[in-house]
């Protein structure tokens, strides 16, 4: 019994430690992973979708759906990468507006919109280029909405 108590105490203590002490490295890593997901996963797949919409790349049902599914896989991971203290100005390369933490539920809801809209676009791919284009353009509206509300663009 005593042993059990000790283990429990240690676990509680560890958990408390983990929530309090997020090291500076963790914050930097979170920002890095955020940027990786946006720049290496979302943007290239959106670019491919966009090229099919514009007609510069031949429309391909399977490839279009795959690209949209890749995007749809991002939001759930993405919203977990926003510990407090990772806003623009606090960590190098962060483009997160402080308003994210003022209303984190709204931020999560917007991320959910991207998940839904990209899944819808993936489904629409099977119904031909016209349907895909409409769904794709709806998805990019979510990109814009979220960036306008929550992104502080780095100076270029």
């Amino acid at each position, binding site marked *: 019994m005593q042993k059990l108590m000790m283990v429990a105490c240690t676990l509680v203590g560890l958990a408390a430690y983990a929530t309090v002490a997020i090291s*500076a490295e963790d914050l*930097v890593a979170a920002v890095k992973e955020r940027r990786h997901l946006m720049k290496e996963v*979302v*943007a*290239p797949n*959106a*670019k491919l979708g*966009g090229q099919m919409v*514009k*007609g*510069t790349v031949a429309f391909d049902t399977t490839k279009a759906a795959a690209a949209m599914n890749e995007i749809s896989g991002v939001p759930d991971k993405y919203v977990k990468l926003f510990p407090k*203290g990772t*806003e623009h*100005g*606090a*960590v*190098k*390369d962060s483009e997160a507006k*402080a308003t994210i933490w003022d209303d984190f539920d709204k931020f999560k809801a917007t991320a959910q919109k991207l998940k839904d809209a990209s899944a819808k676009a993936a489904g629409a791919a099977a119904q031909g280029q016209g349907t895909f284009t409409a769904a794709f*353009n709806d998805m*990019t*509206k979510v*990109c*814009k909405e979220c*960036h*306008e509300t929550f*992104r502080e*663009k*780095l*100076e*270029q």
Partner: protein
Amino acid sequence: MRRALLALLVVAVAGAVVFYVLTIPRTVPASELPAHKPDLANGEYMFTAGGCAECHATPEKKCNDPKTQDKHVLSGGRCLKTPFGVFNVPNISPDKEAGIGNWSTLDFVNALKRGIAPGGEHLYPAFPYTSYQRMTYADLIDLKAYLDTLPASKNVPPPHELGFPFNIRRGLGLWQLLYVDGKDFVPDPKQSAELNRGAYLVMGPGHCAECHSSRYLWGGIIKSEEFAGARNPEGKGTVPNITPSDDGIGDWSLNDISYLLETGNTPDFDVIGESMAAVQENMAKLTAADRDAIAAFIKALPARPDAVPKSEQKKKDAKDEDAAPGGDTKTGGSKEPDDGSDY
């Protein structure tokens, strides 16, 4: 000694007379206005193309908030923080006291084509009449008629906060001598109708050059650097070069430009932000043919290197930040040590 004083007095008086003459408000006479039955639909279209609401509608929260409240209530109140001082954007709703409800069509045309308000008051070119002057009388008459249909607002924004000598409106007469002639855009007969339409929209109502071009110290656009990018007139960073060069958007197709104007997405699927987001939303409301015309004109601009090297601007921003009293207190102790590296 006395003679010297007298000579000085003569020179001063002569100077004052020359200044007075050169800065007399130059206006369009009523006889110039054509008989034209206002077309409200086209007026609304010009209102959108010209981005009137983006400056004149009340900002959402702070006075420099990029977003606006109701775009149809042009009650003013936006603040533009520029190197010349703070411009507080006026109310141009049809209210007779607080707005421009008492302006005749001729008054309105003179403001847009000559930078002169009723009573001969010179307007500051933060209001981009340097571009609007290229608009046709017909489009301006339509625009005025449309503005008259919008709701009136009693809001009275604060006056501009400008230092000497910029607070002397009369002096703008000299500036207007250089940059304002009120001449309509002249189509180039050698170019297609599409390219000329694009040129009209960009150089006239769209006033794209106003942000995308660098300026001399006194605020005139450097013609040889037109559209080659500029310092952000309202803060940090740069406005991009949109000429078809390596620094600019030379690798964008016509379709890429039209698509950006329609959706706000760059070819690499970044989302444009800041003040361009609102501009793009207006462009999205134009006809597809007009967006294509704008793209055709942009694509045909002379290719130019960046007018403001991005590296130089970054250094300047960093210096400004260091010089700012108190520094950035928001991030306080959690701020990462700044190694001045490239970001």
